[in-house]
């Protein structure tokens, strides 16, 4: 019985949260990796673009709520996400047209692109804060839990409860669907293949008659979908705050690079690597050991490898280690 309790404990506090957080990171990381692979720059505006998409979703959620439209047990935001995506894509295309296009035609070095994306980051940050303000917003409605900790305890008679939030299930489900669609698109359709070809060797792709304008357009469309959904899921699960989104850029970068930048599948897994290592290393295992060890051996301390304050530091350290020993990432990406 104690053993089952221990397993439930790990599931509840490590596995499910890490899987959720990892999914959110994975979506962002694929966004970064796509932009890097096809448009060839590190996009420092990632976090803020995600917050822009989320903001649009929130605005539409509020609008639907004021109309009285809802999805019952599901959050209204699901209905608003498609509209958020449309505005996100429009915003990205606008920025591409007025900012990035020029440098693409100039064939500027990636550093210059990165600098320009910092300008975009500043502007997007301002836009988001001017429209919705810097405060904390919760826009979740509908049923909060699928399984409540107390109900679970009563049902199974265990000491440990297992709480399953609907946003967690939603996040994991949406991520799986979205990512499988994306991989199907990249690997099976003609446009997807031409995107891959463009990413591998630009000149060769152009010679074989691939239209670069179309590639760039499709890339931004996919990026917009990923950014909005990733951002909205994070916002539903936790809450929306522009500053948090800016900070999330860092673990997202870490996930993309750890997975091998330019490689979408690597980025997908990288998100989970980062999320699991962050949570595994900062979780206090005291209760876990209390269950599985006999009473005489119970630990006195928290059995925590690192304090939770170092959550971000863990993912960054992983990144640094990967950069030193395996610069192309765990799954071969572009070599630096």
């Amino acid at each position, binding site marked *: 019985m104690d053993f089952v309790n221990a397993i439930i404990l790990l599931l509840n506090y490590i596995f499910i949260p890490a899987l959720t957080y990892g999914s959110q990171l994975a979506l962002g990381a694929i966004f970064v990796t796509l932009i890097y692979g096809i448009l060839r720059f590190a996009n420092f505006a990632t976090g803020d673009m995600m917050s822009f998409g989320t903001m649009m979703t929130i605005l539409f959620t509020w609008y639907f709520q004021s109309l009285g439209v809802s999805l019952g047990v599901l959050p209204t935001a699901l209905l608003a996400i498609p509209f958020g995506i449309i505005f996100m894509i429009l915003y990205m295309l606008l920025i591409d047209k007025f900012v990035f296009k020029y440098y693409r035609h100039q064939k500027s070095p990636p550093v*210059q692109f990165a600098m*320009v994306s910092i300008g975009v980051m500043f502007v997007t940050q301002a836009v988001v804060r001017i429209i919705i303000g810097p405060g904390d917003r919760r826009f979740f409605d509908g049923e909060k839990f699928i399984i409540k900790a107390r109900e679970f305890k009563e049902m199974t008679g265990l000491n440990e409860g297992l709480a399953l939030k609907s946003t967690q299930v939603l996040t994991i489900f949406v991520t799986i669907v979205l990512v499988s669609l994306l991989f199907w698109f990249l690997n099976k359709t003609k446009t997807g293949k031409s995107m891959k070809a463009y990413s591998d060797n630009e000149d060769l792709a152009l010679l074989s008659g691939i239209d670069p304008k179309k590639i760039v357009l499709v890339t931004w469309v996919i990026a917009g979908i990923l950014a909005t959904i990733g951002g909205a899921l994070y916002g539903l699960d936790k809450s929306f705050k522009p500053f948090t989104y800016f900070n999330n850029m860092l673990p997202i970068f870490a996930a993309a690079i750890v997975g091998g930048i330019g490689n979408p599948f690597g980025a997908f897994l990288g998100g989970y690597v980062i999320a699991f290592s962050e949570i595994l290393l900062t979780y206090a295992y005291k209760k876990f050991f209390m269950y599985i060890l006999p009473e005489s051996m119970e630990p006195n301390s928290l059995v925590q490898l690192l304090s939770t304050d170092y959550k971000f530091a863990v993912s960054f350290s992983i990144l640094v280690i990967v950069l030193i020993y395996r610069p192309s990432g765990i799954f071969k990406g572009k070599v630096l």
Partner: protein
Amino acid sequence: MVGIFQSWNIALSIFNLCLISAVMTMGANIQWGYAGLINFGIMGYTALGGLAAVLISVDPVQEAWSAGGFDILMSLWLIVVMVLVIRFILKRFKKSKIRTYSIAAIIISGILLIRFSAEPGIEAIEAVDPAKTGFLGGFGLPIIFSWIVGALFAGGLAFIVGKVALGLRADYLAIATLLISEIVIAIIKHEDWLTRGVKNVIGLKRPAPYEVDLQTTDWFIELVEKFNSGKLGLIENLADRQAALNQLVIEGSSVFVKLCYSGLFLIVVIILLILTQKALYSPWGRMMRAIRDNEEAANAMGKNVVKQHLLIFILGSAIVGIAGAMLVTQDGLFTPGSYRPMRYTFLIWVMVIVGGSGNNFGAILGGFVVWFLWIEAAPISLFLINFFTAGIPETNALKAHLIESVPYFRFLMMGLGLLFIMRYRPKGILPEKIEIK
């Protein structure tokens, strides 16, 4: 200009921060402009400089030392032993899987051991009067020394970072340095025994006199009286005149203190400017430019690119460290929570790009212009909003919303400024001048 419109006090504090920004920008400019190294870790070096200011100037906390000093020293000793062992292994054994794994094992067990030995000490230290101290304190030296120590700290960190990350391609280097600086901030924020963490350190010593002391000093009151004799002469009533004088003395004292800081900072800026100008036009500066413009060619000419990159990375970071110490000196407090990448990394980069990379005067100009705009963006945009919405009544929701969000227009201004400069004047306001002799 601000002096006339708002007050001399505000004008001087903006000027002081402009000077500090200029120093930071010079540091970043050395790395980016001279050598083409991109360093997004400015925040980390600034914070280390600030930490140096705390460690140098705060009086040591005796009880904390006696409570946990031994444990801390033990762990420091352990770290040194660990590093030595790793060095020994690296030297003695050939590269192999076993070596890599054994080093990893040493590091992991070392960290566990250090945690184990330091834990009681840290807890004891943090328990010593947590509301006031709860940390080891510093050395109780004049805070000016910290400017040099800050440079050493930052340079030391840069040495480690440079060893690790300089081989990376430019944009990876940017990301890596950004993340490393976040790690540094995380450590400073949470190692309370060393830095008091988010509890902040306040009331640091000053290199300049205190306002309160000045207000009771005779020569200072006389000075203020002399300066304002015309204005004071107009006031007939003796009591009124005394009151006016008191007011002026209070105002004058804070201006005087700020002027002292300005003087100190100006000295630093001028020294750095002379040094960097000399360096830029020396053979060494020429070599750096050669490396920047064509690494392979410079390498083929027998220049040690890796070593020079490391050197310039350390130098630039050290200058940023000086600026960090100066910043804490001027504020008189150390708040680890306030180190945010937006303010301390990206804004500095805007300064470098706007001012003109590779040009020291450009860096200083960028520091001044961008900092001034950053501070004054809110009033300017408030004025613009009022101007353009003059016809709309005050109660209009849109206008009220815009006025409420005035502080965020500074981001918009910075972003647009950066984008326009990048597009239409990619070399900055004062472009790099290359003299061919």
